[in-house]
């Protein structure tokens, strides 16, 4: 059965998310349905698929659904509905060329359900609510940030009423944060600190400078996401998670990294960072592959390539996305190894990165 209206696809997806799990065949059926929807309503994606000879008639396996390079979100409007009808437009932080990738959402119903069901399972782990501290501006300050919305939703739906945001108009509110952490430490109640990875760095630096450290109660959690993006100094995973454990007394196994992106409607998580590069995985409505970047062909387990996500919840745009992240398929999910960077030339011809750097001045 093909879906005809947006209401129908939203309903089908909400039902799919509500399932306890999905086998390959169930995922495939839903994925093909979403592909047919996007092929019909997303003109640039249709052209992209046609150029590859992949249409709803020829594609029989979810793995054959053509994956759009993530850069396309910068240059094209990838939306099944007219973009002006979007209630929310999420934009990337514009990491490379000053152009920001955009995802258009005519409704956040699926996005929110996807986020919450998965967040409860992977972060809350059976807890109803937890006292949260957020190290990221809220969605009033950053209305186009999917991360601000994510953290806002987490705080409202899974945080205790006294949960707070520690980034205000004047930036990071360290004194307030340290006071709350001290209270949490004394209270014996678990505490959760959530934010962009780079937001933790100045906190770690301030604590190190004052020689101060906290020992948050057992059961406390940390969630970081997004890496450093040139917003703070770069730390290796070991430096970062050792630093968090030492500063807050939260063992590395309780430090969870969320892997998400503006160009998706679902998030992927690990189960703690006791070791570097832990296995990451998503819920049953997203599947990830690792492919050879040139041929797009799936690589066998253990071989490093580029990650492709098929996120059915991202129904209004394109569900199949070729990222710029390096990864390896392993039992239970995949390992993430940061961005795949193009290399400078081996000779004396100028390559893209150097050229762009110079063009930016």
């Amino acid at each position, binding site marked *: 059965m093909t879906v005809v209206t947006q209401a129908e696809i939203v309903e089908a997806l909400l039902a799919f998310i509500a399932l306890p799990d999905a086998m390959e065949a169930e995922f495939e059926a839903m994925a093909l349905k979403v592909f047919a929807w996007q092929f019909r309503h997303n003109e640039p994606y249709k052209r992209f698929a046609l150029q590859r000879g992949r249409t709803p008639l020829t594609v029989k396996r979810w793995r054959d659904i053509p994956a759009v*390079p993530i*850069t396309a979100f910068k240059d094209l409007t990838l939306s099944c509905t007219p973009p002006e009808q979007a209630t929310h437009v999420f934009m990337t932080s514009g990491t490379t060329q000053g152009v920001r990738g955009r995802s258009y959402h005519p409704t956040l119903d699926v996005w929110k359900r996807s986020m919450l069901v998965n967040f409860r399972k992977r972060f809350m782990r059976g807890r109803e609510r937890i006292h949260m501290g957020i190290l990221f501006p809220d969605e009033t300050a950053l209305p186009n940030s999917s991360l601000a919305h994510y953290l806002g939703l987490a705080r409202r739906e899974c945080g205790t009423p006294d949960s707070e945001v520690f980034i205000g108009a004047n930036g990071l509110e360290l004194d307030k944060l340290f006071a709350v952490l001290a209270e949490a430490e004394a209270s014996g109640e678990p505490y959760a600190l959530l934010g962009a990875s780079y937001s933790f760095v100045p906190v770690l630096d301030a604590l190190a400078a004052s020689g101060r450290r906290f020992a948050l109660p057992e059961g406390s959690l940390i969630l970081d996401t997004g890496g450093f993006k040139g917003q703070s100094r770069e730390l290796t995973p070991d430096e970062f998670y050792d630093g968090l454990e030492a500063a807050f007394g939260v063992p590395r196994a309780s430090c969870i990294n969320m892997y998400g992106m503006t160009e998706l409607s679902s998030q992927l998580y690990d189960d703690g960072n006791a070791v570097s590069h832990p296995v990451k995985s998503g819920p049953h409505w997203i599947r990830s592959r690792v492919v050879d970047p040139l041929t797009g062909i799936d690589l066998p387990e253990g071989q490093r390539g580029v990650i492709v996500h098929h996120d059915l919840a991202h129904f209004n745009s394109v569900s199949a996305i070729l990222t710029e992240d390096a990864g390896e398929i392993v039992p239970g999910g995949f390992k993430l190894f940061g961005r795949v960077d*193009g290399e400078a030339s081996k000779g004396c011809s100028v390559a893209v990165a150097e050229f762009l750097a110079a063009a930016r001045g």
Partner: protein
Amino acid sequence: MIEHAGHLPGLDAQALRWRHTSHAAWGESVTLALPELDEAQATALCESVRNNARARLKRMETARIVDAIDAANARLLDRKHPLRRKAEHLLPIVTGYDRETVRLGLTSYLKTFRRPQLLRFLAEDFANPAVLDGFQPTAKGGFLRAHGPELLLHVWAGNVPALSLWSLVCGLLVKAGSIGKLASAEPLTAGWFANLIAEIDPEIGQCLAIVWWKGGEEAGEAPFLKAADTVMAYGSNTTLTALRAKLPITTRFLPHGHKIGFGMVGHEALDSRKATALARLAAHDVARYEQQGCYSPQMLFVERGGRVSPAEFARYVAQELTAIAHRHPRRELAAAESAAIAGWRSTQATRAMGGAAELIGEPSDPWSVVHVETPEDLSPTGLNRTLKLVAVESLDEVPALVAPYRNFLQTAGIAASPKRLFQLGEELAEIGVTRIAPLGRMTAPEAGWHHDGRFSLLDLVTVTEIEQSTEAASEGFAPYVD
């Protein structure tokens, strides 16, 4: 087998530390040993090269140096010579280029260093090359003498085979005591060449050393950077900036940054007969050295109005790239290189989604061709046989499209009528293009080429003038004065 790189006169090879690196390609592998000198060894080497140059090289006639280079070069051109055989065997394994590319490339490149071509090098830069041997009268009156640096340091980069010989030969021609730092991606040819020179003329061999250190490593490079009078360096602007910051202000710095080449095809070159041949030449320039050369084309501007449209020409080039790939397979790519191509292809595929570009070829092909119908600025591709063709109404539009990237310009390949060649040449010269070549020869500069628009020899020397009046004044102090 371990191949030891470098040429280190006066140092005991047994006493040196060697760093071993492994290379594999085309089903074979080789281990190289690169010398790692400690500070005392490096300082001693600089001292001895400088002193030997002062005592010997500077006192030689240029003709003797030309003879030695010519003889060394003749051996490398001789396909039966053991060293040439070794070069043909090892360079493909180390650089990854296919055997035929290396063999043909070496021969065509080495031909620029035979005696007649060396004399051309000299004549290009010096009205009277004898200024390198002694004071010579000048047109304005007085006398002129030119000296190369006592210690010239070359910092090479890149994997294009034997590229280092260009600056090494230039240094020797101006009698500079020369120390070359090998590129990690091609750390062989310069050392072999220096060893040949030493074998042919041991005195010159004493004035020349080929070393290696890990790029940017303070301890390895410091003694050399301190000792050199002149530094000729190749690399990215980042590398060059870092290097310049470490040099004493009195050191002459001659940088050669990364460049981007492009081609221009006029409508007059696009009839059905000429266009096929031209596409083959363009494909040749793209495939030779996998676009790693500063002179390699990354973009072609193709004029509308010929019998063959720009879109058709793009297909011709794609066909020729397919044909070339059979004879000269593309090197095996490192993960990051594949990623660079994939990234570039992604951007082009995205534009194709918007209907603004046509991407020819499958991702699995060992080349990629993109064709766009609207004019756009010069930009680099993903390298390794990735080319963009841009249709333009008239080639007159091109200078404006490349002018913003002046600092990266060097070679332009032109296929147009003689009249237009010179018209376009004027405009290109004005915006910073320094070399204009035909398609098919973009990767093979002629002897005496002014690299990056500079004078290969003249930039190295310092002249001493005896002013005319000095000569007149000295007359008064002659023993035979009346």
